[in-house]
């Protein structure tokens, strides 16, 4: 266990950023926080969480896959992959850290997505315990401990100091580079942890009943009438999907600038009407089916294929940001009541 005074945070960031890019949450002009590249003068945000999740670090919204040059009947393939470079993300909350496991199970299973894998290998995740969880937080429902986030390094912030606990080899290696850190006692943060856990106890959805969901519940839930009412006012926008740390659907598109064709992937949302639309037909013709797909995937299909692990980490972003305030908690509660 190491520590550094809060007043010295800047020197810590500078030290980390010495040989790599460092992303930290900073407040934007509207007071919300975003992961931004640290530079001299960056100020760590005190918000509970960023608007966008930390998945951007490995799975950016838009990513060039490759390029092509077409001349007559000839096609030439152009490599467009960014060179591998190591980077660190500081201030990842417990929920987002868990989301990486969920994404890994998609992108790192065969056939491995090398774009994702490359970034995943090169990252050092420095997590940060949640001092002041929001009422929208419900990570504890998924067995996540906001007081003890995972990651290569775990940090805690008290009034005076930032405590630093490397968990992995990568974390240790980074720690070794950081001479600004001084030794600290593990016991120093027990009080902080206890306080976080005490707050977590009070979270309204901290003990959300998930028993209606999980492996093998497809038949039970798929045709339930509640879907219609739940999805009724869904606008079909992609806000929930794009800010969700575990949503990973993507589209592959091309951009032809007249000289070369760039094939890129970008986030897509199963909430969009054209997600499954084919010239031949549309298997999910209304928003009800599309809405259902999103939640069934997170709460049933994903657990089906992943030993019961839910593809939700309780970060609460969708609770805050859905334009019509429909969210996974309402779905879980409504369906839960319906199946009782």
């Amino acid at each position: 266990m190491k520590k550094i005074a809060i007043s010295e945070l800047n020197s810590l960031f500078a030290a980390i950023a010495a040989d790599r890019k460092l992303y930290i949450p900073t407040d934007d002009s509207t007071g919300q926080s975003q992961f931004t590249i640290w530079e001299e003068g960056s100020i760590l945000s005190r918000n509970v969480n960023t608007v966008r999740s930390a998945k951007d670090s490995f799975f950016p919204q838009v990513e060039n896959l490759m390029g092509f040059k077409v001349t007559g009947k000839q096609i030439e393939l152009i490599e467009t992959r960014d060179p591998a470079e190591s980077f660190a993300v500081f201030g990842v909350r417990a929920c987002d850290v868990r989301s990486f496991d969920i994404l890994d199970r998609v992108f790192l299973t065969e056939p491995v997505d090398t774009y994702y894998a490359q970034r995943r290998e090169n990252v050092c995740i420095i997590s940060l315990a949640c001092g002041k969880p929001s009422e929208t937080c419900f990570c504890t429902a998924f067995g996540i401990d906001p007081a003890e986030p995972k990651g290569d390094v775990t940090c805690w912030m008290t009034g005076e100091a930032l405590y630093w606990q490397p968990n992995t080899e990568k974390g240790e290696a980074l720690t070794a580079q950081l001479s600004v850190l001084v030794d600290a006692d593990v016991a120093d943060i027990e009080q902080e942890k206890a306080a976080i856990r005490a707050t977590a106890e009070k979270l309204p959805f901290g003990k959300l009943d998930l028993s209606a969901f999980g492996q093998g519940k497809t038949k039970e839930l798929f045709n339930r009438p509640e879907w219609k009412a739940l999805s009724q006012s869904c606008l079909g926008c992609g806000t929930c999907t794009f800010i969700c740390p575990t949503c990973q659907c993507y589209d592959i598109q091309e951009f032809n600038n007249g000289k070369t064709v760039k094939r890129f992937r970008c986030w897509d949302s199963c909430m969009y009407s054209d997600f499954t639309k084919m010239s031949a037909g549309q298997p999910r013709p209304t928003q009800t089916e599309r809405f259902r797909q999103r939640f069934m995937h997170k709460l049933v299909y994903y657990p089906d294929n992943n030993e019961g692990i839910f593809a939700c980490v309780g970060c609460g972003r969708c609770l805050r940001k859905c334009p019509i305030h429909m969210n996974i908690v309402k779905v879980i509660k409504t369906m839960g009541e319906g199946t009782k």
Partner: protein
Amino acid sequence: MQRVKEKAIELLRSGEVSRVLGWKTGEFFYDLTPAVFESVEEVEKGFVFSLFSGANLSKYLIAESKKEGKIAVFLKPCDSFSFVQLQKEHRIKRENIYAVGIQCDGMCDGESLRSAGCEGMTGVEDGESLTVHTLYGDQVIEKKEALLGKCQTCKSKRIVDFDELIGQQGEDVPSDRFAEVAKLEAMTPEERFAFWRTELSRCIRCNACRNVCPACSCEKCVFDNPVSGVQNKAVADSFEENMFHIIRAFHVTARCTDCGECSRVCPQNIPLHLLNRKFIKDINELYGDYQAGADFDSRPPLMDFRMDDPEPSVIYTRGGAAK
């Protein structure tokens, strides 16, 4: 506010309407969801009209008014502008709608409270000022500070079209809603460019602004249409960010009622209303005052002209700070 719920019950019970479009209680005090209620029981259980009924319900009428039976809808003054504009564009079947106008003193939502400094909110007491209960203690904030952006520059308390009114009919109110636009206009082009880059670069192209907008109700949006030439799912670069928002603002020019929903729902807090308002301001200045949705008869300025309209070169001479 209870009267609104009572009216919903009364309308359903009397058989005047078969459905009611209103707001449904959420898990918190602030997360109301627009919903269609089909029975008195549903209304009694879930209907609520409160300080957090900010969502503009009129867009839902495009689909709902085409269904069997009559639907009642509750419209705040700003919503009623959208309601009228949609009627002008033949998008809703008025005969299937029973419109109840409700007066409004401004709305809040969770995000507006959060930006006023509340975190961990568990309850609220509405009064002269708001007392917000949080996990970390109570907080008292001025109501004005907690109001939605759109309510802070409310343009009218007039309910343009309704079958019945709850509360008083209001009037257009003086508002300084163009002050922010004017402030931007007064900047140098470089400053303006920097301002918009900062704002628009946060866009994640979630389409919330588009999908919530009552004017953005095309059967198929150009941005979803592969043959439109502008289709794109992602903000691939700065051009796409600009393009999307310019085209979107242009497409709602003279149709935007300035209901402010776009800015309310933007997860990234981009002040999108400043784009729409710029067009409104320009139209007012160049072609005479026009407010979409304020009446049934006026001709939309982009579908109209005068022989002596100013030439496009007017923008070269108006300068940054347009008068």
